[in-house]
């Protein structure tokens, strides 16, 4: 039993480390890419942003106002019911994208 516990603990630790490594390696990038319903609709080079500005993306499902600032991007306003995208705050790396499920909006940071 002890050996089995150790086996699983070691296996999961390895998997978690591998996952974290891939996450860390993919962290870079300066381009904020906005995807609406699977199609890229906007791409902003965050390294070139000197003063933060906002843009609103609309579709028949609703709208999201996105703030692009030097090195980061965040959803600051939206008419979706959950506001998960706003609660996430600003993302500054490619680790986890902002996803607004009801509006099918995805914001990622890429190379």
């Amino acid at each position: 039993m002890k050996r089995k516990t150790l086996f699983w603990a070691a296996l999961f630790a390895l998997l978690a480390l591998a996952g974290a490594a891939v996450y860390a390696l993919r962290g870079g990038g300066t381009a904020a890419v906005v995807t609406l319903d699977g199609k890229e609709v906007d791409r902003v080079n965050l390294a070139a942003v000197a003063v933060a500005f906002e843009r609103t993306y609309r579709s028949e499902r609703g709208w999201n106002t996105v703030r692009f600032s030097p090195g980061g991007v965040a959803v600051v306003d939206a008419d979706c019911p959950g506001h998960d995208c706003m609660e996430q705050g600003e993302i500054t790396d490619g680790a986890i994208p902002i996803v607004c499920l009801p509006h099918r909006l995805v914001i990622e940071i890429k190379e």
Partner: protein
Amino acid sequence: MSKTKKLVVMALLTAVELTIWVIEGQIPPPIPVPGVKLGLASVVTLTAMVLLGRREAGCILLMRILLGSLFAGSFSAVLFSLAGGAVSWAVMSALKGLFPEKLLWVVSVFGAIGHNVGQLLAAVAVTGTPGLFWYGPALLAAAIVTGAFTGVGAMYLIRALRAYEEKRG
């Protein structure tokens, strides 16, 4: 366990799971990454699966998701929750019999991984952005940590509930 008692226990566990879920949603997450949540409510699902059975645990989980969305007031989250919950439940149901109870936390880890896989699949299907799969590894790492934590929590809860039941006779 009589039918009535089982029903009462299931209702109680649903209320407990719902309460934990609502409260956890109000606490700022330890890591500010969406989709990375401790998922404390799954302690109850896993406990119900061991003490009552797979179907009963599925009922409790489904009720918690539906009632939870009512409390949280957003329908899009239901889809996410259902996708995660369904895969997680299926994985844990399949694996529960294959592992001894001392390794219940392993079942919990696989359940947590299943939960995140389900949510990722739902996100990709809804947004039509296959690039989201790149976030799988990060979610995998998170699921292992949170799954182990909730699994150990469930093991303690099961032990405590059994001891209580024995004392009462």
